[in-house]
């Protein structure tokens, strides 16, 4: 049983709410990962073109932070404890929650803008502190994240929130990709972004010469004559390089990201007072990483980029080659675009030491992790053994009911094509547009015909020019603190490894199915029932 106790001051609660608001703009669920000294919030958007990591430091963001990993989970499985990445995952408590359920809990708890501290103490309303406690009582079927808001007039509001078991998905961003770099004050950039209308889809960031930068929004939707007036507002902003605190971008570099995503990021960054946004990216088709941090909150956004105009073959070819070469240099990252790391994870193990056989014996572990916890694997998840592809340990990241066993196990393309096309439009509906893009509406533009674009789309299915999420990356980019944490975990873990395995195996036989309900129905209560 893991122990997690967090105390937040009202300001931190407000910050947390803003962070969750930002996450909710990308996806419906947030993954919480509690570690010894920090709490990670992650969201992957449905098209897998954006990954957000918001890290709350235990010492600086929280008033108090105490996490003790579940001793029974500090194990290494059958392969011993030599894998670094695995150790880092050990013991971390992970769960997934609906962002929309979390948002109202933290909304408006902070009385805005206190002029001075003394007066703030007397302000009526608002909260005094917020306590978050993990209540993990698998035996009683009561697994809840309990958020207690201690208000100023002696009222305590308690929220018991359901969660479900989750995997951690890391965004992969190779250092080699970060050849272009700029930094700007968040408030400045926010002001500029306000000029962009709500309907445009893409934002091109182009450094054409050595003095000016262009932010231009554009759409790829086909607009026929009758609906010409529905063409979104096209906005272009030309800024002097002086506006940037730092600007190192190769000449004629132009990338495009989603306006909505970019705006969401900038809006969130703009809520901090003196924060500087740093963006790092390579060529179109490689991800862009945007980071900023303040007061113990570290935010990292990984967005897929594309070339303006959805890229004909010419535009695509080069980046693909480059990425391939990058990838070959990194063991284990080549195949899986998204890797889910269950714990003890087949995936992370294979990505670090590829010699480990894609084990049949380990697969049930994936499904029945933590047999003692009556937790759910979402019902629509495909059976775990099938989700692990034999090659390289890449796993479909989409717990998608469509992924029939045959599809998933047979081809990794299937998972890629459904979700990982960062550089492409969201699937299905939009792919229709890609087919007939560059209709005569955009007549004289030199963009290629629909066929060629479709080819480009097919090219992408090779899975090379995509936004990659890789478990191994997480291990390579760990901080010093994490390394320490691993060492601690490793020692603890060895002891309980064997026992844990026995438990799991027993569970597999007993349950027969890998999917379980979160709780017995008779103990289920409403979200806010006490």
């Amino acid at each position: 049983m893991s122990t997690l106790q967090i105390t937040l001051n009202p300001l931190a609660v407000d910050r947390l709410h803003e962070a969750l608001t930002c996450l909710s703009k990308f996806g419906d669920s947030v993954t919480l990962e509690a570690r010894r000294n920090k709490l990670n919030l992650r969201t992957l958007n449905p098209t897998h073109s954006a990954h957000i990591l918001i890290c709350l430091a235990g010492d600086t963001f929280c008033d108090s932070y105490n996490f003790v990993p579940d001793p029974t989970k500090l194990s290494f499985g059958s392969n011993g404890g030599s894998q670094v990445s695995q150790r880092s995952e050990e013991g971390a408590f992970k769960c997934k929650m609906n962002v929309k359920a979390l948002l109202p809990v933290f909304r408006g708890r902070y009385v805005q803008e206190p002029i001075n501290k003394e007066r703030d103490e007397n302000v009526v309303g608002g909260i005094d502190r917020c306590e978050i406690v993990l209540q993990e009582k698998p035996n009683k079927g009561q697994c809840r994240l309990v958020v207690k808001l201690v208000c100023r007039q002696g009222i305590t509001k308690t929220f018991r929130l359901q969660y479900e078991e989750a995997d951690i998905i890391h965004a992969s961003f190779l250092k080699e990709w970060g050849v272009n770099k700029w930094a700007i004050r968040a408030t400045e950039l926010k002001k500029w972004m306000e000029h962009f209308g709500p309907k445009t889809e893409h934002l091109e960031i182009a450094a054409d010469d050595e003095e000016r930068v262009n932010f231009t929004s554009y759409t790829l939707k086909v607009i026929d004559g009758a609906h010409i007036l529905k063409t979104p507002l096209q906005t272009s902003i030309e800024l002097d390089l002086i506006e940037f605190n730092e600007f190192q971008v190769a000449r004629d570099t132009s990338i495009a990201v989603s306006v909505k995503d970019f705006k969401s990021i900038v809006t969130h960054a703009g809520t901090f007072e003196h924060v500087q946004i740093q963006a790092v990216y390579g060529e179109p088709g490689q991800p862009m990483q945007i980071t900023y941090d303040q007061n113990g909150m570290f935010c990292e956004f990984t967005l897929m980029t594309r070339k303006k105009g959805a890229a004909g073959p010419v535009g695509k070819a080069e980046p693909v080659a480059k990425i391939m070469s990058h990838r070959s240099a990194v063991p284990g990252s080549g195949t899986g675009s998204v890797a889910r790391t269950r714990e003890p994870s087949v995936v992370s193990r294979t990505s670090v030491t590829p010699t480990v056989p894609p084990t049949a014996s380990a697969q049930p572990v994936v499904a029945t992790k933590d047999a003692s916890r009556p937790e759910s694997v979402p019902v629509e998840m495909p059976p775990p053994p099938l989700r692990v592809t034999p090659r390289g340990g890449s796993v479909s990241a989409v717990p998608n009911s469509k992924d029939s066993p045959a599809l998933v196990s047979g081809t990794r393309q299937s998972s890629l094509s459904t979700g990982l096309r960062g550089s492409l439009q969201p699937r299905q509906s939009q792919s229709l547009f890609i087919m007939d893009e560059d209709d005569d509406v955009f007549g004289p533009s030199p963009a290629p015909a629909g066929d060629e674009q479709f080819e480009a789309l097919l090219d992408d299915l090779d899975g090379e020019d995509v936004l990659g999420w890789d478990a191994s990356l997480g291990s390579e980019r760990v901080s010093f603190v994490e390394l320490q944490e691993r060492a601690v975990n490793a020692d603890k873990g060895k002891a309980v490894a064997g026992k844990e395995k026995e438990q799991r195996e027993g569970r597999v036989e007993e349950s027969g199915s890998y999917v379980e309900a979160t709780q017995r129905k008779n103990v289920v209560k409403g979200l806010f029932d006490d």
Partner: protein
Amino acid sequence: MKFRSDIHNISLLSKVAGTLSVVGKIGWLQLTPSHLQLRVLSTSDNSQSQVWATISSSSIFSDPKITSAHDDIINLEVPLDTLHRSLKSAANSYTSASIKLTKKEGIPRLSVIITTETAASMNHAKIVQDIPVRVLSPQSVAHLCKPVVPRPGCAVILPPLNQLKGITDRYVKMVGVNGRIVVEGNNNGVLRMKLDAEAVKVESEWRGLMNPVVGEDGGMEWEDNEGDDEEGEEELNTQEKERFSKVMVDSRDWAKVVRVSAAGKRVIAWLCNNHSLVVYVFMDEEGDNQATINYYVSSMVV
């Protein structure tokens, strides 16, 4: 066809576009050397209304250059919210702004070019907003003209608009979106709003409002019927002053009228008994007709 001009009053144009976007999505914009006219039709199920905004060219543009094959008049169809959006973000902080008709990617566009000073370096940043438009032929708009209304039975200056808005919102809630609201007024400074729904009957009355002389502000037009007696206002006897003129309008239309009215400094309503409601919204102070919005709503048949 060419149009290019500097804009010296972005906020007025932005306000007009924003106000009209309440009424409809797409408007007909007519640019002439002397004025700019924007018309929007309201698409409601069981009633008809239209809004005409007229702004003199000089109150928005400086040094406009406009040429076309048809008397230097350009007719465009513009998406109002997009137009509003493009102007709104810049309205507060711009050092210079201009507008021109261009064509990009095969789509004709009104390009609003704004330069603004950056806070950090005091350098200039350039913002270009391209609004998609459709060019209309003179023939396609030739038949469009302002509706003709009879001489109003009552002309009244509307009560404080925030007050009117609050009450109207409540009415709309009570009566639903397709409900009917009766507005009636007389020449003795009384205006009434009535609602007769299934479950509720409500009436609000304002007294002591001003009754301006019909046509005292310029730009107002009406058609006198042959049979009407041509009595001046001052000759109205007490009985005639007390006589109410009544119109019945769709609740949503009325709510829009009130919202549009809120943009003006001086708002005069004409009640043409059982025929129509005309609201004259003057964007500037009294006596200045540089920018006006006329809202025509036909009365529903009782």
